[in-house]
C-alpha cells in the first residue's frame, strides 16, 4: 500500500513538475509569481480535447496543438498585459496575472461549459510490477515529463536562448547592455513556459476529468513545489514537485484523501514561516 502510494506520488510529482518549472522560469526571468499557471494548464487540456475529440486527431498531435495554443496565449498575455507592467514591480505583475487567470478560465467556461469531458483514448489494462499497479496513463505521463525536462535542461544549459534566460535572471540590465533584448527573451520564455503548461494540461486531462477548474486543482501544489525548490531554481522546482507529489499521495495513510490539498498548504505555510528560500534555494534569495 505504502509503496503503491509512493509510486503514485512520484507520477503525480512529475505531472506537477512541468507547471512548477514553468512558474519558476517566469519568476527567474521576469521576477513575478505567475498566478495564471493553473488556468493555462486548463487551456492546454481544452485545446487538446478539441483536437482529440472534435477533430479526431491522435493524442500526440493534440498535445502538440495544446503546446502551441498555450505558448501563443502566453506570448499574447506578455504582449497585451505583462510587458506594459514590466517596470511596475512584482506585485503589479502578480495581480495582473490573477486577472489573466480569470479571463482564461472564463473563456474556457464560456466555450466549453461546465460539463466534464475526457479524451478519446482506448481504455487499457494496468500493468502489475513488483506488486505495484501501473496504468498506461502513468507511464505516458512519466515518459513525456522526463523527455520535456531533459529538453528544457539542454535548452537552458547549451542554447543561446538558455544562456540569455539565465543572464536575464541573474541581472536584467547587465544582459541588456550585453546586447540581449529583454523583450525578445521575455516572449520566448513565455512561449517555452506556455508549451510546458500546454503539455501539462494534456497530462492532467489523462489523470482526471477535464472541466474549467482542472488546472486550478494543481494550483496550490504547483506553488508549493516551486517555493519548496526555491523560486527561480529549475532543478529545485522539479525536486520540490516530486516531494509534494509523494507527500500528497502518502498523506492518505494518515488523513482522509479529500484533505490531501492540506499537505501543500501546510508546506507553503511552513516554508513561509521557517525557510522563505525553500529547501534547496539559498541561491534564489541572493537575487
Amino acid at each position, binding site marked *: 500500500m505504502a509503496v503503491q502510494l509512493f509510486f503514485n506520488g512520484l507520477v503525480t510529482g512529475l505531472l506537477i513538475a512541468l507547471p512548477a518549472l514553468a512558474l519558476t522560469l517566469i519568476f527567474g526571468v521576469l521576477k513575478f509569481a505567475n498566478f495564471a499557471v493553473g488556468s493555462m494548464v486548463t487551456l492546454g487540456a481544452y485545446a487538446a480535447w478539441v483536437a482529440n475529440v472534435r477533430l479526431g486527431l491522435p493524442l500526440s498531435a493534440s498535445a502538440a496543438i495544446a503546446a502551441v495554443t498555450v505558448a501563443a496565449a502566453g506570448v499574447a498575455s506578455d504582449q497585451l498585459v505583462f510587458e506594459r507592467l514590466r517596470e511596475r514591480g512584482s506585485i503589479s505583475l502578480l495581480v495582473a496575472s490573477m486577472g489573466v487567470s480569470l479571463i482564461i478560465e472564463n473563456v474556457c467556461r464560456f466555450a466549453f461549459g461546465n460539463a466534464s469531458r475526457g479524451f478519446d483514448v482506448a481504455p487499457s489494462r494496468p500493468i502489475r510490477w513488483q506488486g505495484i499497479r501501473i496504468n498506461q496513463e502513468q507511464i505516458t505521463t512519466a515518459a513525456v515529463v522526463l523527455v520535456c525536462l531533459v529538453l528544457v535542461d539542454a535548452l537552458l544549459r547549451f542554447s*543561446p536562448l538558455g544562456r540569455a534566460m539565465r543572464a536575464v535572471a541573474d541581472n536584467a540590465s*547587465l544582459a541588456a547592455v*550585453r*546586447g*540581449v*533584448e529583454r523583450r525578445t527573451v521575455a516572449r520566448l520564455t513565455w512561449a517555452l513556459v506556455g508549451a510546458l503548461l500546454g503539455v501539462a494540461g494534456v497530462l492532467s486531462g489523462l489523470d482526471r476529468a477535464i472541466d474549467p477548474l482542472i488546472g486550478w486543482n494543481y494550483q496550490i501544489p504547483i506553488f508549493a513545489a516551486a517555493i519548496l525548490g526555491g523560486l527561480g531554481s529549475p532543478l529545485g522546482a522539479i525536486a520540490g514537485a516530486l516531494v509534494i507529489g509523494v507527500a500528497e499521495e502518502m498523506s492518505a495513510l494518515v488523513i482522509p484523501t479529500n484533505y490531501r490539498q492540506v499537505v501543500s498548504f501546510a508546506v507553503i505555510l511552513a516554508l513561509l514561516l521557517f525557510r522563505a528560500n525553500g529547501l534547496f534555494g539559498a541561491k534564489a534569495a541572493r537575487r
Partner: protein
Amino acid sequence: MTGGDIQALSVRSLRSGYGRGGDIIRGVDLDQAPETILAVIGPNGSGKSSFVKTLAGLLDVRSGHVMVTGRDVTAETPAKRVAAGLAYVPQEANVFPSLTIGENLKLATEFLRGRAGVGPEQRQRVLELFPEIAARLRTRAGDLSGGQRQMLAFASALLANPEVLLLDEPSAGLSPKIVGQTMEAIVRVREAGVTVLLVEQNVAAALRIADEAVVLVAGQISLRARAAEVGASDLAELFFAKVA
C-alpha cells in the same frame, strides 16, 4: 578636435532621473573626440554613475540627445546601443555570477551578430589581454575575486568591438597593483582605437592616463580641462564643491 570631424560621443542638453524623482542629470553637454580618454570625476552622489547609465540606455532620457559616432541613439534600447558601438561596464554587478566565465564571454557577442568586427579574431585579441580569465573558462563568475571579476567585465565589453567604452569606476575595491594593471589595459584599449569615457573616484590614477577631464557636480559639468592641467588646486575646488 578639428572642426567638422565626427565626435565619438556627443551629448546634448541631457536630462535624466529615476522613476518619478527629480532630474539627477541636469543638462549635460559633452563632446569627446575619437580615440581619447576622458575622465569624469566628481564627488560621491554627483551623478557620475547615473550619467553613464543614461548613455548606456538604462536610465530613460527625459530630454536631450546622445550620439555615438554621429548616430543618434537616444531612442534605442540598451541592446541596440551596444550594436551601434557603445559598450558599458557598470560599477558593480558587472558579470553574471551564475554563468561560467566562458558563458559570460559567449553571451557578450552572440546577440551582436550584426556588428562589424565581432567574432573569433576579436575574441582572440581580447583574451590575449586577459590571460588570467582565458585560462579559467569553466569557473563560475560568482567565484572570482574582485580583480578577476573586473577583468571579465572589461573583456565582455571589449568583445563587442566598441567605438566608445564607458567604464564606471573600474578601480573600485582593487589593490593598488591591480589598479595599475587596469589603467594599463585601458591605455592599450585606447591605442587599439577605442574611445574611453572613464568615471573614477581614484582621481590621480585617472588623470595619469586621461587626455581630458570633466568634473561633474550635482548632475552638471562644472569644469573641463586637459588632464595635465588639472592640478591640486582644481581638486580642492572639486571637494569644495562637494561641501557646497
